[in-house]
């Protein structure tokens, strides 16, 4: 039995009078949950609520072991493309930002950055500008950025959005490997339920318009 990392207890998503819920589920280390539904269904709202970017409209997330170290993988379009940052800088900035300047471990940051880029197969792209990479490569850099933090929980917001089939397969294989070899939990938003099923049998279906919250059998 995997130790429980997070629990949604009577959780409502939303803003003001518009709410979706209640959601009740738990997620343990090494487990993954895919979240799917139509555009505007509440998927990104769940992700942002889980990451603490917006408060829940009701209920709560409970973290029995304390709030987990979270690696957040946004949609690649959320990074401002005007900034001429290399892939290595995109990966290392959060690592550097969380350390105070007089205790910064530059060697450790460089090693973790290189390791993370190696895990996603982009070690030879470290010095290339992020904005000049392909969509699939950009998404893998963002996954590497999350991995470099050595997170307990990885939250991915549509990691395969706008990618070709090969890039999508690559990311799927990477996430499958993560669930097997790492002891972190994964929450992944996806449009593609069939694709997400390759990574995990546990799913959550959200549809705000219909007021629908449906959880896979194994997660009830």
């Amino acid at each position, binding site marked *: 039995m995997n130790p429980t990392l997070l629990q949604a207890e009577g959780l409502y998503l939303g803003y003001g009078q518009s709410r979706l819920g209640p959601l009740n589920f738990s997620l343990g280390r090494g487990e993954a949950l895919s979240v799917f539904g139509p555009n505007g269904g509440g998927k990104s709202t769940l992700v942002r609520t889980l990451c603490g*970017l917006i408060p829940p409209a009701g209920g709560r997330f409970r973290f029995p072991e304390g709030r987990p170290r979270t690696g957040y993988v*946004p949609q690649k379009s*959320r990074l401002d493309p005007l*900034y001429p*940052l290399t892939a290595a*800088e995109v990966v290392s900035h*959060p690592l550097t*930002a969380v350390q105070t300047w007089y205790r910064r471990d530059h060697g450790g940051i460089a090693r973790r950055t290189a390791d993370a880029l190696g895990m996603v197969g982009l070690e030879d792209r470290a010095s290339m500008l992020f904005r000049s990479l392909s969509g699939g490569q950009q998404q893998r850099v963002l996954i590497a950025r999350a991995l470099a933090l050595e997170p307990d929980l990885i939250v991915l917001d549509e990691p395969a959005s706008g990618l070709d089939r090969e890039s999508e397969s690559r990311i799927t294989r990477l996430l499958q490997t993560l669930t097997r070899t790492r002891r972190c939990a994964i929450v992944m938003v996806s449009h593609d339920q069939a694709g997400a099923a390759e990574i995990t049998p546990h799913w959550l279906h959200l549809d705000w318009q219909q007021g629908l919250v449906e959880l896979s059998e194994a997660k009830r």
Partner: protein
Amino acid sequence: MIGGALLGYLGIRIVLARKSFASSAVSQLSGFGAVLSLFLASGDPHDHLPMAAGFLTGIAGAALFSLSGSGRRLPGDAVLAAAVIGSSALTLIASRLLGIETRHVVQAFYGDAVTATADEMYLFAGAAALAAGLAYLFRERFLLTAYDPDTAAVIGLPVRRWIVLQGFIMGGVIALGTKILGALAVFAFSVLPATTALLLAGNLRAASAMAAGAGALSAALGYYLSFVFDLPTGPSMAGTALAGYLAALLLRRKD
């Protein structure tokens, strides 16, 4: 040169944030703050009150501008434009009501590299050193909160506080720089060296160094040319910065 280099370095952040008119807005707001202090305290345009009031108004404005444009209704440059228009108009109106000629207001707050006093230079150098130190030490936090605020929040950074701090630093440098170098030179140094560097450099680190260098060079060359050809100093420095930008347009990198 110190001013040119520092404003060039900070200008990278200003241009990438799409707030190139922030410098002009802060300068105008500082001028208005100086005149407002005269209006309220009936003081002498040449004592320390207008400068202090202008400085405080400038950094407060910069902090507010740094948060503008993050909502959905208005882009940041519209807010900056409103600040420029409002400050300029209110400065002139207040000057008229005070019976102070506008040129005296300009002299009190909008400086000139030639007429700056030694005390003002030392004050600016000290402030510049502090600002440069803070901007360098916390560069990753300032950057991350600018280009990916969501990820910054997830890893636990208080995003708004870091954005406001960066605004304070920039506002302080711009407000003091306006007194030492003049509004046009400050505006030019906070935009043109950065745009020059972003056209030529291959990455952000190189662009930041290049912008600082271009700012220092523009300041030195502009000052020299104004001395040799008896030209106004601020516009000369702005002109050399512009020349650098035009050269960069011809030599720009392809990504």
